[in-house]
């Protein structure tokens, strides 16, 4: 991690080396030298987060396509790491003296040199004591990824003991879901949070997934930044995740206990139980115990992590998170045993797995200068024409020619020698060319019916509506919005504010609601016209639950904490359209309800005054009680029948 930070801060282009082609555009914001202070901070967090997410997904890789796709890159990385250690001090000096505008050469060598920028930071105050560069160099050394996160656990979602428990469960459940879906298994997951002592819990997550092959288990659970999925562009979970290895690391740090993993890949294989620790200095797994065990499960994985934690109920609790997960994953059968021993079951309501999301290449409209340069320099294509077609979606020979003509670049130029100004020309050419929207098979929506079924499963209400929009595109990234609402929710009062549940790629978002495009869209929708109360700039009022889901190969989160979606105009528009569709249906329902309420009111109104007419007539005319009752009955009947109010 630290390595990356150096490269980004000093030579931003270098960052790209660790990024997958598809991802670079989002993060590696335009190169700007060391001046890009923001990038310095944001870069590593994002990269780390994603990397960890990918690590968790290594499981899949192991089962389906063991390391095939990413082998090359992994090798490169490991090689780079080897170099780091030896030449750290030298490189640091070099980097320290290097001009702010490094040459391409410098970039390459510094890219292999992680310690440099990291060391630069502590140097400043000491300089006044007159230390020489050589003295400084002795203190300058690499900081391992694991060490970095040990000190910055908040970056991983382990800010406090309450959040730690939630994050641990979340990472494990996300992993299980991804694994099951990739293996084509309808997921059955059981979550247990067991209290061991005060402020100490054991999280146990068990799934019926494909299991993990023996050799992969230590790496997945005992090594950060291990995985493959972040090199591809397709919808997957784990966007806010840091990975199960980070959770294991947190547990190890706070309790000293290893992660216990039990896994079985099929009826013919034996179940194996591992105890895995992480060497935080080297970012390497340590297997403290491994043995064969009897496990009645045919295939699946069970993860046990003991950690320092506090269990809370209510908003942002495990209970809440699991309930929302059940909504967004109607094909999931979920059982949760809370620390009190109470069991909550969310049955499966949809018997089919969601459509599989395909990986796609990045779309030219979404690429940025730094990313483009990096892609070109890494390209195996011999000329720009081929490069464009190979690396991007929706670019065929004709489109490639058009782009290059408009960029005033030669189609036969070598991509590896692309200069910065030429890359700018190329970007301009892309902007001027009309290119078809990216393919949308990288998306796997929940579906309107399925979403409604999921919502019904968890929320008791009178009325439901759900909408699944068609895919749309922001900055070259396909995305899709789904929305649902439940009205007349049990336990909510009429003047309560609506409850909003946000989801990104089926994962509940629980923090930073105010900063999220989904929230903005809900606030910006005119709920009054659907018969709801809404104060200016507030959520609508009523016994209402609103649910928004955005699915995308690349969800644009506002920050590395991955809890709020950025408000791109295209995204806001799609969310609003989805909400309006739901709102209109709700409006019809409410109006129908109002008519019934009015009828009831009319009945009460009549019933309270008619007896007085009877009484007055009886008094004036000296009628019998029987006659009085007859008057009341007849009049009630007459007025009940009248439609006029």
């Amino acid at each position: 991690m630290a390595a990356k930070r150096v490269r980004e801060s000093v030579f931003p282009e270098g960052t790209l080396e660790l990024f997958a082609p598809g991802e670079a555009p989002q993060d590696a914001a335009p190169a700007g030298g060391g001046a890009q202070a923001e990038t310095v901070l944001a870069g590593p967090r994002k990269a780390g987060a994603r990397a960890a997410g990918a690590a968790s997904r290594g499981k899949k890789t192991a089962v389906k396509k063991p390391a095939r796709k990413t082998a090359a890159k992994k090798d490169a990385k490991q090689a780079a790491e080897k170099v780091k250690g030896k030449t750290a001090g030298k490189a640091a000096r070099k980097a320290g003296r290097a001009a702010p505008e490094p040459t391409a050469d410098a970039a390459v060598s510094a890219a292999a040199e992680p310690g440099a920028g990291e060391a630069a930071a502590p140097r400043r105050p000491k300089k006044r004591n007159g230390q020489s560069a050589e003295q400084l160099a002795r203190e300058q050394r690499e900081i391992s990824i694991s060490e970095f996160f040990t000190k910055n656990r908040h970056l991983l979602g382990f800010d406090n003991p309450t959040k730690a428990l939630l994050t641990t469960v979340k990472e494990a459940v996300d992993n299980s879901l991804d694994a099951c879906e990739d293996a084509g298994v309808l997921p059955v997951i059981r979550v247990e949070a067991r209290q061991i002592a005060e402020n100490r819990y054991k999280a146990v997550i068990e799934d019926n997934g494909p299991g993990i092959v023996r050799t992969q288990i230590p790496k997945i659970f005992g090594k950060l930044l291990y995985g493959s999925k972040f090199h591809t562009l397709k919808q997957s979970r784990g966007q806010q995740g840091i990975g199960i290895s980070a959770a294991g690391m947190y547990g190890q740090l706070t309790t000293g206990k290893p992660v216990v993993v039990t896994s079985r890949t099929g009826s013919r294989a034996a179940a194996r139980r591992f105890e895995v620790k992480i060497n935080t200095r080297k970012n390497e797994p340590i297997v403290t115990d491994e043995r064969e065990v009897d496990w009645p499960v045919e295939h699946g994985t069970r993860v046990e992590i003991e950690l320092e934690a506090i269990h809370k109920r209510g908003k942002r609790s495990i209970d809440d998170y699991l309930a929302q997960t059940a909504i967004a994953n109607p094909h999931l059968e979920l059982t949760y045993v809370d620390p009190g021993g109470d069991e909550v079951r969310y049955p499966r309501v949809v018997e089919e797995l969601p459509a599989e999301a395909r990986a796609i290449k990045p779309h030219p409209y979404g690429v940025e200068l730094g990313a483009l340069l990096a892609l070109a320099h890494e390209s195996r294509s011999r000329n720009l024409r081929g490069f464009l077609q190979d690396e991007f979606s929706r670019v065929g020979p004709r489109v490639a020619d058009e782009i290059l003509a408009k960029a005033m670049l030669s189609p036969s130029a070598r991509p590896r020698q692309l200069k910065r100004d030429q890359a700018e020309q190329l970007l301009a050419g892309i902007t001027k060319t009309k290119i078809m929207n990216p393919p949308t098979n990288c998306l796997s929506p929940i579906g309107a019916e399925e979403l409604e079924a999921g919502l019904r499963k968890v929320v008791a209400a009178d009325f439901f509506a759900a909408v699944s929009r068609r895919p749309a595109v922001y900055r070259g990234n396909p995305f899709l919005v789904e929305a649902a609402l439940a009205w007349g929710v049990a336990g909510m009062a009429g003047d309560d504010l609506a409850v909003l549940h946000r989801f990104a790629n089926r994962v509940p978002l629980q923090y930073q609601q105010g900063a999220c495009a989904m929230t903005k869209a809900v606030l910006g929708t005119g709920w009054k016209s659907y018969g709801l109360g809404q104060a200016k700039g507030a959520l609508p009022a009523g016994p209402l639950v609103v649910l928004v889901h955005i699915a995308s190969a690349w969800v644009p989160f506002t920050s590395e904490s991955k809890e709020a979606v950025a408000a791109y105009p295209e995204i806001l528009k799609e969310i609003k359209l989805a909400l309006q569709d739901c709102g209109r249906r709700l409006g019809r329902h409410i109006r129908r309800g109002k008519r019934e309420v009015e009828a009831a009111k009319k009945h009460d109104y009549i019933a309270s005054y008619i007896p007085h007419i009877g009484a007055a007539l009886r008094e004036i005319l000296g009628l019998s009680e029987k006659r009085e009752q007859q008057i009341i009955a007849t009049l009630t009947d007459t007025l009940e029948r009248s439609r006029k109010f």
Partner: protein
Amino acid sequence: MPRRNVVRKIRDQARQVERGVVGGGKPSLRFPVRSLANVRYDPAKGHFTMKRGTKERTLTVGTVKTFAQTLRMMALSKALVESDDIATKREAYYVSKNWGDARFREQPESDAVMDDVEALFAVNREQLGFIPEEKGGDVAGRLVVVDRDPDSGRRLRIDCTKFGSGAYSVPISVEHLEFETEAAFILAIETAGMFQRLVKHNYWKTADCILVSMGGVPTRACRRFIRRLADEKKLPVYVFVDGDPYGITNIYRTLKVGSGNAAHLNEYFCVPQARFLGITPQDVTDYDLPTHPLKEVDVKRAKDALKNDPFIGHYKQWQRALETMIKMGVRAEQQALAKHGLNYVIDTYLPQKLSRPERFLP
């Protein structure tokens, strides 16, 4: 109207409603419209008479509450009349508190229903057993009122010259009163303040008149008292009010020709022989009176009267006077005369005015 008739009318109306209900229909009550739009000024009779406008209140879901309240009010009235009792408007409002959901929340609601019932049967509310709380007005001057002792029925001669700095108070019902007087005219005054000044200085002695304080818009009793007195003793009636739209179109107009609200009773509760002494817009100029600017409501009231009041509509002089007032944009109170000295009104203004009664506005 004899009591029997009132009871019979109530029973007939109730019977009609009962039959309508039992027949499965929606019975309705027909009321005369109680507004200025439904009266015309009859110069021959000298008061407002009711036009034929009626409104029908059909028993529907929307009207069931008022309908129930109207019927209960009728039942209360019948009980009062039959037992020869009375209830003030306020008391009737409190009686309604026994009616559960049909009770009145505020007295104005019950007053409105009472006015409806009154109009429905074209009777005076006193005949229904309801009496107002309001005072009839104060009287001082050359007049002897002959009343009866409530217990013995003996004649009581009340000399209105003998109240010193006080005054005789007009009772709620004046039909049984008899009058003895040698006065030359009746002066009806808007404010108690001006009345006090004239009484204190024994103005009635100097001017040989009867002073009546109306205290704002005259009550029915006050109107009826002046009317009977003026009719029987053939006395002219001069009205002295503030020079503003309220004094003219509300106080003076109501005294002279009655109101739009109880038009069926105007015949008795008006004083057609009344004439407007002042303060006129012309007085403001002639007497150089201090003024206040007309308020928005004043202007609205004046314009409304010009447009909708049949009485104003009948007299060109009044239209000119109101138009002048709107143009001047000011109003002048009776007390404004004090600018020229506290007793200027007694020594100068009234004598000057009364020397030319033919110039009074109609």
